[in-house]
């Protein structure tokens, strides 16, 4: 079970940093092609967190959730490319629940966890029971969730006044922000609208994930099954159940990411879903840069969140589309994966394939 990205250990910080540098170089080349000064452009991107604090903080927080959604099944050898759709499902469920039970954010959070979790579990069941490649099923589910949600948003949740937006999350169901007058002086100066509480919630989630994985018995079973499922099975670990749990947990986390976004930041969904788009795919990069460790993911989310706010900034300053962030992320993901084989020592026992069987 030596899945390659999992095998990347502490000694690979160099490889990861090399991949990040290559990704930024790809971004710099594009900036140069677009007629911008590449060096000052990259500097503008990297320093964006100072000027675009709100985008930076919110983006990083949600990315922690979607990155965990990729990292947790990866240890079991599953590629959950479905965080994108699981986040949509969570956001929609949270909005519907908040409109129905508008007194506290709790029902919305529970609904989002259930919606995302079921989506993850569904892909997990198809994989474990029928051996259907989870990359295919999660991608298809992303598209199904995307179009279904667009239908629901337009048909059932549209705001009568702004037809391209949904109704707002009622005030009591929102996750409140920390008002700027309660913040320490320099921060309060900068963050006029306050500080998003979801930052602490996602940080707590990452810490909890770390504690469960590395400091509890179920976490030990999970790591054992991920390291060698046959050895784990012979010692009484119900591997199949661990695999399903990992996919369900991933869906729950991505769904909660959608809920945090809706309840703690945007309060609405737009009819093209542009406000929800991209978190799931960016999370893959965060997980790989963070080397699938929840604490590493927190650090990596700050970098990728900065990249995202930076590309928003560059769209304004250098007239380069914000999709530049995808170019950098894609280059980083490709490079991390391409170089990961360099430390390869054995043949993976797991057969990766479409509808594959164990070899």
């Amino acid at each position, binding site marked *: 079970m030596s*899945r*390659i*990205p999992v095998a990347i250990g502490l000694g690979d910080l160099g490889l990861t940093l090399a991949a990040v540098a290559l990704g930024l170089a*790809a971004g710099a080349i*594009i900036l140069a092609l*677009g007629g911008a000064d590449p060096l000052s452009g990259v500097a503008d991107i990297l320093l964006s967190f100072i000027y675009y604090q709100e985008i930076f903080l919110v983006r990083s927080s949600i990315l922690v959730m979607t990155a965990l959604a990729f990292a947790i099944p990866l240890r079991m050898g599953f*590629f959950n*490319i479905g965080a994108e759709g699981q986040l949509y499902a969570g956001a929609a469920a949270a909005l519907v629940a908040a409109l129905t039970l508008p007194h506290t954010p709790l029902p919305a959070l529970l609904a989002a966890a259930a919606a995302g979790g079921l989506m993850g579990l569904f892909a997990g069941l*198809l994989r474990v029971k*029928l*051996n*259907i*490649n989870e*990359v*295919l*099923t999660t*991608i*298809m*589910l992303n*598209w*199904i969730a995307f*179009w*279904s949600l*667009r*239908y629901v948003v*337009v*048909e059932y949740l549209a705001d009568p006044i702004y037809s391209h937006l949904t109704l707002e999350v009622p005030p009591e169901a929102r996750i409140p922000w920390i008002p700027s007058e309660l913040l320490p002086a320099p921060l309060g100066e900068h963050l006029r609208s306050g500080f998003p509480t979801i930052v602490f919630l996602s940080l707590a989630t990452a810490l909890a994930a770390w504690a469960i994985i590395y400091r509890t018995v179920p976490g030990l079973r999970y790591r054992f099954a991920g390291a060698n499922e046959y050895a784990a099975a012979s010692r009484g670990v119900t591997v199949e159940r661990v695999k399903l749990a990992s996919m369900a947990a991933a869906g729950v986390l991505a769904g909660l990411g959608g809920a945090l976004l809706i309840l703690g930041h945007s309060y609405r969904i737009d009819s093209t879903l542009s406000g929800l788009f991209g978190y799931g795919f960016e999370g*893959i990069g965060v997980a*790989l840069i963070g080397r699938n460790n929840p604490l590493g993911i927190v650090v990596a989310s700050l970098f990728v969140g900065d990249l995202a706010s930076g590309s928003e900034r560059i769209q304004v300053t250098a007239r*380069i*589309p914000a*999709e*530049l962030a*995808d*170019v950098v*992320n*894609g*280059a*980083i*993901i*490709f*490079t*991390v*994966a*391409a*170089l*990961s*084989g*360099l430390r*390869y020592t*054995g*043949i*993976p026992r797991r*057969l*990766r*394939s*479409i*509808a*594959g*069987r164990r070899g």
Partner: protein
Amino acid sequence: MEAVLGDFTSLALLAASAMVPITLASIGEIASERAGIVNIGLEGIMLASAWAAVAVYIMTGWGPLAGYLLGALLGLSIGVLHGVVSVYLKGDQIVTGVGLNIFSAGATVVGTYMLWGTFSNSPPVEPMPGFVIAGVRISPMVPISLAAGAAVWLFLYRTTTGLRLRSCGEDPRSAEAMGVNVALYQIAAAGFAGLMAGLAGAYLSIDYQGVFAKNMTAGRGFIALANVAFSGWNPLVALLGSYVFGFSEALAIYLNIVLEATAASNLVNTIPYIATLAAVTLIAFRKPRMPAWLGRPYIKE
């Protein structure tokens, strides 16, 4: 009744146009997977080639064939790169593909903006001259892609080289012992898959939609991957499979016309993806036998 029959004929013909990108990408990927290399990046290759084909078409004025050529060349180079990374670096074939897809989605939008100053799409282009059957335009790529499926089947199952290629995907160690240059075969096969996905992308933008639009591949690369499994790695069965997927897409287009862009048309757009999910689920019960060494890096002793 007459109208319904007429509609069905045009639907069946529209499906023939819609199946082409999936056909091309599928048969390229079958050759690649038969050699043991899986390419999740088909989607990204298609999208990049779709963009490049329109770009060269508009920028040079050399017409659609130049677009096809550049799309194919770009696909080939990305495919060979994927092969080299898989064979020599033993990189993770799944994650590199995911990275490629994300890179491509971003780069094509940035490129569209740089060339045409819009975030969404290129100016429209004139497709190749086709022939018209029952009032529906059929591109020459329809028969060409069907012939390509038959040719790849003949190559894989009726030639010694095809046998050697398949041996790389089944048991590279034995193949090596028999004197087959596994690395060469695998890189060539991965390059071929890239080339076909490149053609698929060029067809999609130049021929099928007459424009490059952001994220226009819309999951077709993954539908092609599903079709490969659905076909049991047989190019002839893959032709049938892509027709089914093409038909589901044509049905969605048809229903969207009928529904005239109401909210329900969003729901109609899920049809191809639900069909794909259903197809891979149904085929799972038949337990197709896949190449034994698929996606595993081959490490020499």
